[in-house]
């Protein structure tokens, strides 16, 4: 999917918009990273619940590793977003609910890793981290999905700015965008699987 999406991200036809110009292509890089990140944090959230239900430490390990890979995608997403903002808004960071929400959401996940490393007793650590992971995922959805829609935001798709709707996104862009979302999510899951295999071998 990415073998198709990557060249098309540069060569494909895009909507011609005032202010955005060619930067609209960042949709294929920045937004897809965040989609992959949300899916990975979702898997982490699912395994945190599984741990709390069944008490299996493997689920806790999977939860942490999915969150780690999710963080990588989140970091790349923030960097690509900052590059875009620098060209479009004239500054890499502006005081905007969406941007601040995204930064706070990532800081909450950083706190998750700090919390995890600060507790030595394994069962207690896993239980505390799992509960905190659930809180983190709920906060992520609130901070990047709901809060910017309540407040006015500069970010595309919020505050009345064009996002995925009608004129803003040419139909020819959709197959490339969706392929990139699926492709990067699969790469993320694969990366997490490799880490899980490696960690499992270490434990054995």
């Amino acid at each position, binding site marked *: 999917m*990415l*073998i198709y999406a*990557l*060249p098309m*991200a*540069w*060569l494909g036809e895009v909507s*011609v*918009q*005032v202010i955005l*110009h*060619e930067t609209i292509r960042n949709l294929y890089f920045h937004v897809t990273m965040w989609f992959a990140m949300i899916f990975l944090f979702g898997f982490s959230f699912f395994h945190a619940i599984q741990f709390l239900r069944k008490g299996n430490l493997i689920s806790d390990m999977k939860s942490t590793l999915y969150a780690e890979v999710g963080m990588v995608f989140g970091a790349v997403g923030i960097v690509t977003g900052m590059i875009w903002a620098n060209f479009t808004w004239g500054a890499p960071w502006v005081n905007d609910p969406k941007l601040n929400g995204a930064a706070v959401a990532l800081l909450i996940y950083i706190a998750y890793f700090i919390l995890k490393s600060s507790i030595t007793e394994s069962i207690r650590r896993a239980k505390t981290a799992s509960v905190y992971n659930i809180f983190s995922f709920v906060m992520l959805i609130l901070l990047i999905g709901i809060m910017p829609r309540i407040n006015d935001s500069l970010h595309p798709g919020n505050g009345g700015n064009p996002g995925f709707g*009608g*004129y803003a996104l040419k139909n020819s862009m959709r197959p490339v965008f969706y392929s990139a979302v699926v492709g990067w999510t699969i*790469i993320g899951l*694969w*990366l997490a*699987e*490799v880490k899980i*295999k*490696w960690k499992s*071998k270490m434990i054995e």
Partner: protein
Amino acid sequence: MKRIGKLIVVILVGFLNQAFAQAEQDSLAGAPMLSLIKFEKSDTLADLNASLGGVKEIEIAAETQIPEGITISKEGIISTKAGAEFSKGIYLFELKAIGGAGEVYIVNVKLDFSRNYPLVIVNSDKIDMATGLRKDGMIWVVVAVSMILFGVIIGYLIYLDKKVSKA
């Protein structure tokens, strides 16, 4: 006395008549009049082909509402249909014009029909896209670099996966 009475009645009737006539006149003045601007013949309002130095295509978004009675040719000639009637007012719409070299313009058209004569204001903004990068083929360098980077990431992932599975 009778004469004075008749005179008073005549004055009163005259006064009332005058008052009613004035009221009728006032009501007519305040009533919405059928205010139309009519084009007997087809008339060119704007020629984008000439003003933009050649237009290859005109794109009109699905949600753009072109006033009834206005026609826009593929070459960007905005004209009125013969016999077209417009209510007095201002009409605004946006078009996208593709120039001869593939350059794109956002064209804002304002038709001011609020007076007895039409006033047409056309404002075009050129949107710079990386057409040069595509024309000289340098875009392929960008594609090649991103594909090489992607290949390296995938290759490393395959290597790691195999190494971890074997261990």
